[in-house]
């Protein structure tokens, strides 16, 4: 079809009768503005559709008008590619709507589609003409929607919208960046086209309006600053919501109502009439009272340097399948190590075989590294989202903040990204809301007016370190301590190290903020941070100097799938204790041991007393070492509640792939999971904190063997 001359277009109808309006719509979406041939083809296609029998008279008329639009462009009469595209797609969508309306009379409603009570998209014409805008909108799924296509649409749109969000933020600091405008424009355009093609009218209408706004920016009619920037971001958020609602419906959830959709639509249709301008936005766009705000400066040069367009080719793979692959590779590694350890390989005369096994070994190791890397995603995306958080918050709180991010090309496990995202949101909020002072205070202390928050990530000794550094007022040691005393968390008479005091900010309900704002001050945020980091098996350290700023350092393992553990033996059983939870291991001197009322055992280590819990008694294991002086004590637990677990011996350090036991045997106290050991047997991974808690809570933790574990079978 590409080579066909325009003169032969009339014949096309007879030759290609199968072309439908949907095909044309799909093609319109993929149209490349540079490629004139594409426009010609589309015009031909539309001619075919219009002359066919699939459309009623109204629709056919609309399609003909669209064809004329395209012809005018191709012949050079109308050089504005944008206008043509927008016009054409509007006409085609109208045509499609009117055809849908015609078909709907013939087709019975599919019962699986939840009916929308205040359905605005039912009417074949765009809602703009409506005299009374409704307050909400509901995305309506066409009855013949293909779930696979919809799922693909959701995934694709999400990616596009995320890209356009960072582009929009970049644009705000550098409004002249044409490439960013185009990125956003293309994203909106694609979402519009695909959603229109899938019959998601609300989404497509919204995307269309947002696209029109962007098109004005692209044509330099307006600049993406002030109210327009807010409006663009608001449309983006609404689109995200719309996409999310499609996704939740796919998962069987009820239809979500898009709050404020119609308000937004009215504003988008005519932004100027609604008071949007390049000036600072009025209260209409913000629910918070209008504060004397300043344009937050997000250093443009850094941004541009970071924004690298990625053209790496990729495919989408179901994560369950990927996880299975990684599991299987793990199995292969274990199977391979069993072969390597086979005693027959060491025999004389097996050199040839040994050489081959070594070769296979190398390949397997490489395969393992590769499979692990497959689940890793760059931190860059997460960091980019923080720009938005910082921007919104700086605006709300009337502070001037510069967020500098440096991801150092680090990658982390995909499963960790979501938790880390929540953690970072709260930490960035904390830094801006509590750390950075208001501009007037900063001026007094001779600091630059714009506060700086630095978000960096780098690798350090097998862990990923994420650092948030602000140049704000620093943590107020006295205030935190006073609050903690008031909350009854600490003993006012004891002395605490700086680090211990700073760590108190993670206690739930403790907030050093004097006033509760809608952003922070309820003492929840830092609790979320603590929990998140615990869930990630990470650690957080705080350093702070008054008046100069604070540094929060988060250390995370590269992946949750692999646990770095110490293999210990207790009687005939072996357990893995995560290395991160172990403070030290030692064999006690007999004189350092003592008992309380003849039962509770204590050990003295460097002047510190701690209780001894015997793992073999807790777990009911026989034939284990009874005398602590002959076994080993593993010191676990947090700062103030340390305890020593008695084990027989250490078998060495090992990296294991943690597997959940919950499905197999339910949640077992003190056990966080299982792992396949080098010999193929399952080893249990202990949760030292839970083991200690279990031992403490038992009324009689020194009962006879079998009481606490399973009675010997």
């Amino acid at each position, binding site marked *: 079809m590409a080579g066909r001359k325009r003169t032969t277009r009339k014949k096309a109808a007879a030759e290609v009768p199968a072309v439908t309006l949907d095909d044309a719509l799909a093609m319109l979406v993929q149209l490349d503005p540079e490629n004139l041939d594409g426009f010609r083809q589309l015009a031909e296609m539309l001619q075919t559709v219009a002359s066919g029998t699939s459309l009623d008279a109204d629709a056919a008329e609309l399609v003909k008008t669209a064809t004329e639009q395209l012809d005018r462009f191709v012949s050079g009469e109308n050089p504005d590619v944008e206008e043509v595209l927008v016009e054409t797609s509007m006409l085609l969508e109208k045509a499609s709507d009117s055809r849908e309306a015609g078909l709907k009379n013939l087709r019975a409603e599919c019962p699986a589609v939840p009916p929308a009570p205040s359905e605005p998209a039912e009417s074949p014409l765009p809602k703009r003409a409506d005299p009374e805008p409704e307050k909400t909108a509901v995305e309506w799924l066409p009855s013949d929607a293909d779930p696979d296509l919809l799922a693909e649409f959701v995934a694709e749109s999400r990616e596009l919208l995320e890209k356009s969000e960072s582009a929009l933020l970049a644009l705000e600091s550098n409004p002249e960046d044409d490439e960013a405008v185009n990125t956003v424009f293309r994203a909106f355009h694609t979402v519009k086209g695909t959603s229109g093609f899938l019959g998601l009218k609300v989404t497509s209408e919204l995307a269309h309006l947002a696209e029109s706004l962007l098109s004005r920016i692209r044509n330099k009619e307006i600049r993406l600053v002030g109210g327009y920037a807010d409006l663009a971001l608001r449309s983006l958020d609404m689109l995200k919501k719309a996409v999310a609602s499609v996704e939740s419906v796919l998962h069987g959830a009820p239809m979500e109502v898009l709050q404020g959709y119609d308000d937004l639509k009215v504003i988008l249709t005519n932004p100027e009439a609604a008071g949007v301008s390049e000036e600072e936005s009025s209260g209409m766009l913000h629910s918070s009272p209008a504060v004397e705000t300043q344009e937050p400066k997000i250093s443009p040069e850094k941004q541009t340097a970071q924004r690298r367009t990625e053209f790496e080719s990729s495919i989408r793979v179901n994560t369950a399948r990927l996880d299975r692959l990684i*599991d*299987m590779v*793990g*199995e292969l590694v274990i199977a391979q190590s069993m072969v390597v350890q086979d005693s027959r390989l060491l025999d004389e005369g097996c050199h040839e075989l040994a050489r081959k096994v070594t070769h296979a070994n190398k390949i397997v190791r490489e395969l393992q590294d590769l499979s692990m890397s497959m689940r890793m995603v760059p931190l860059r995306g997460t960091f980019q989202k923080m720009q938005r958080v910082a921007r919104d918050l700086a605006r709300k709180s009337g502070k001037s903040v510069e967020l500098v991010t440096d991801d150092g090309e680090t990658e982390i496990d995909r499963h960790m990204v979501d938790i880390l995202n929540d953690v970072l949101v709260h930490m960035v909020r904390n830094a801006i809301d509590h750390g950075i002072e208001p501009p007037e205070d900063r001026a007094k202390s001779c600091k630059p007016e714009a506060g700086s928050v630095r978000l960096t990530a780098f690798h350090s000794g097998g862990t990923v370190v994420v650092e948030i550094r602000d140049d704000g007022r620093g943590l107020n040691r006295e205030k935190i301590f006073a609050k903690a005393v008031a909350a009854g968390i600490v003993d006012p008479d004891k002395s605490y190290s700086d680090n211990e005091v700073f760590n108190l900010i993670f206690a739930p309900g403790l907030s050093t903020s004097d006033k509760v704002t809608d952003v922070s001050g309820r003492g929840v945020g830092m609790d979320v941070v603590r929990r998140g980091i615990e869930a990630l098996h990470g650690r957080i350290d705080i350093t702070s100097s008054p008046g100069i700023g604070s540094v929060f350092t988060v250390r995370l393992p590269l992946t949750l799938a692999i646990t770095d553990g110490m293999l210990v033996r207790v009687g005939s*059983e072996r357990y893995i204790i995560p290395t991160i939870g172990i403070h030290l291991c030692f064999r006690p001197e007999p004189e350092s041991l003592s008992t309380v009322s003849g039962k509770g055992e204590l050990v003295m280590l460097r002047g510190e007393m701690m209780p001894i819990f015997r793992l073999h008694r*807790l*777990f*009911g*294991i026989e034939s284990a070492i009874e005398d602590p002086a002959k076994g080993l004590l593993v010191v676990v637990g947090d700062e103030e509640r340390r305890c020593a677990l008695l084990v027989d011996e250490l078998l060495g350090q090992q990296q294991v792939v943690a*597997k959940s*036991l919950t*499905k*197999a*045997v*339910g*949640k*077992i*106290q*003190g*056990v966080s999971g*299982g792992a*396949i050991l080098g*010999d*193929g*047997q*399952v*080893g*249990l991974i202990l949760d030292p904190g839970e083991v200690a808690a279990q031992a403490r809570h*038992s*009324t*009689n933790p020194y*009962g006879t063997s079998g*009481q*606490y*574990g*399973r*009675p010997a*079978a």
Partner: protein
Amino acid sequence: MTTPLAGAHAKPDDTVNVARGGKFLAFFLSDEEYGIEILRVQEIIGLLPITRVPYTQNYLKGVVNLRGKVIPVIDLRLKFGMPASERTSETCIVVVHLRGIEVGLIVDRVSEVVDIRDEDVEPAPSFGNAVDTEYIYGIGKSQGRVKILLDIEKVLPSMDMLQYEESATHSG
């Protein structure tokens, strides 16, 4: 012979077993012969080293590594209150599907796959309180011998019940 196997899970709990025939895997516990629907059975493996799990019922022998999956292993003898037996070369683990996971069952000896006709399956007899027949799907007759057909869903109603009741331990 082409009677479709009625999934034991498909019938309501309180109705009397409408016994259905089909293909069953027969195995021995002591000198009693049992049967499990063949469609439930994934594979039969030899005894593997079993890792014990603390705070669990005694009939849960522990967990094993089934090609990378960690699966629980139940000693059916202990589950049914029979004395534990010596492991022999015939002792094996029957891996069955149960609510989306695989579960290993230790049995003394696997004998055969039998075809039992509908009319040869009788509902579980009642022995009063002496014997719990809740998990018996029916009694099958085949070649003059009796096979106890198990409703595996009822043998292990939930994985949580594998845990040792903690309240009991605290009173010690």
